[in-house]
């Protein structure tokens, strides 16, 4: 079990404990939201630290970790409203609450791939959301020159359609001289047209 898995496991237990208090009526849905959001924010920072391989965070890092979790907090808020408006607790809600722990993968990968302009991080924009088990495998070719081969790796058999497609198209994605190489560009339309009309470059 790697560091991220340990963090997710620990956060899952803590979120479940808070959920238990909500279910027992010890706290209100608003208090549950605040406590869970705080846990997510704290663990997002820890995940970012882990990804960066550092023991401290700058104020900028903290802002980034907060921003990366903002989407999840919107989902959490929508969930809070659903709980508030429901007559009784529904089966599956506890698991749904616990699944928010997996969202800290996003700051982790942000830290892990900080220096690279990659199109998306695991769990970002995928159908499987926070359940995403994918990873970026970064192979430095010449780090000094900014050359990397980046592979989207699926680690689960049950990956979603987005992850399957990303693996197909992004294994590898090349970064050369700090530039993300786009392998699907058909033509440089504007320069191509300009050159076709005026091949000598004269006005």
């Amino acid at each position, binding site marked *: 079990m790697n560091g991220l898995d340990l963090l997710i496991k620990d956060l899952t237990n803590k979120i479940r404990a808070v959920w238990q208090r909500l279910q027992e009526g010890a706290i209100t849905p608003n208090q549950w939201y605040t406590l869970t959001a705080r846990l997510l924010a704290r663990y997002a920072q820890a995940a970012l630290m882990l990804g960066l391989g550092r023991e401290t965070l700058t104020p900028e890092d903290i*802002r980034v970790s907060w921003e990366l979790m903002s989407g999840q907090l919107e989902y959490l808020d929508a969930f809070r409203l659903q709980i508030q408006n429901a007559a009784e607790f529904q089966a599956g809600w506890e698991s749904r609450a616990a699944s928010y722990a997996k969202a800290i993968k996003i700051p982790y990968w942000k830290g892990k791939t900080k220096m690279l*302009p*990659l*199109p998306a991080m695991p769990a970002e924009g995928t*159908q499987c959301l926070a359940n995403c088990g994918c990873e970026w495998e970064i192979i430095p070719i010449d780090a000094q020159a900014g050359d990397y081969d980046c592979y989207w790796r699926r680690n689960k058999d049950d990956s979603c359609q987005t992850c399957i497609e990303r693996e197909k198209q992004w294994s590898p994605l090349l970064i050369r001289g700090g530039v*993300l190489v786009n392998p*699907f560009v*058909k033509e440089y339309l504007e320069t191509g047209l300009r050159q076709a009309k005026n091949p000598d470059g004269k006005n």
Partner: protein
Amino acid sequence: MVRIKVIKVSRDFLDPKKIKRAINNALDGASLAVKVDFDVTTQTWKNRPGFEITKTANARTVFTTDKIYTIVTRGARPHWIYPRRAKALRFMSKFRPKTKPGAIRSNAGFIGGVPIYARRVRHPGHKARDFDVAIADKWAKKFPDIVQRALDAEV
């Protein structure tokens, strides 16, 4: 609703070449992510259309010239269908489409039941899937994160 997000740039980030590279990387990154989503909408199709990306100074366009994909995306009004080469039309009685309006995914779909023969058929039409709208909405929200990542890579 318009979302406004502050993109922070480091003080030592003053080299125009770096800014240009970051912008281009962000545009290329976003276009790659958008292309993946378009391909997801046809993942279960037998004849999958190809999607391409064109590149201009400050834009990327992800597109296909496939006619079927355009019809599926834009929808179709009810219309009559007549046989062109045969005397009758043949189709199956049960059908479940592979895609749904606004959903960036494709399912197995289903064609089955019993064959039906007819001289002409009133096709009920289908709702526009609006894949382009759904994908644009999704990535417009995430674009600031992609730009931030590209800027972070330069400092």
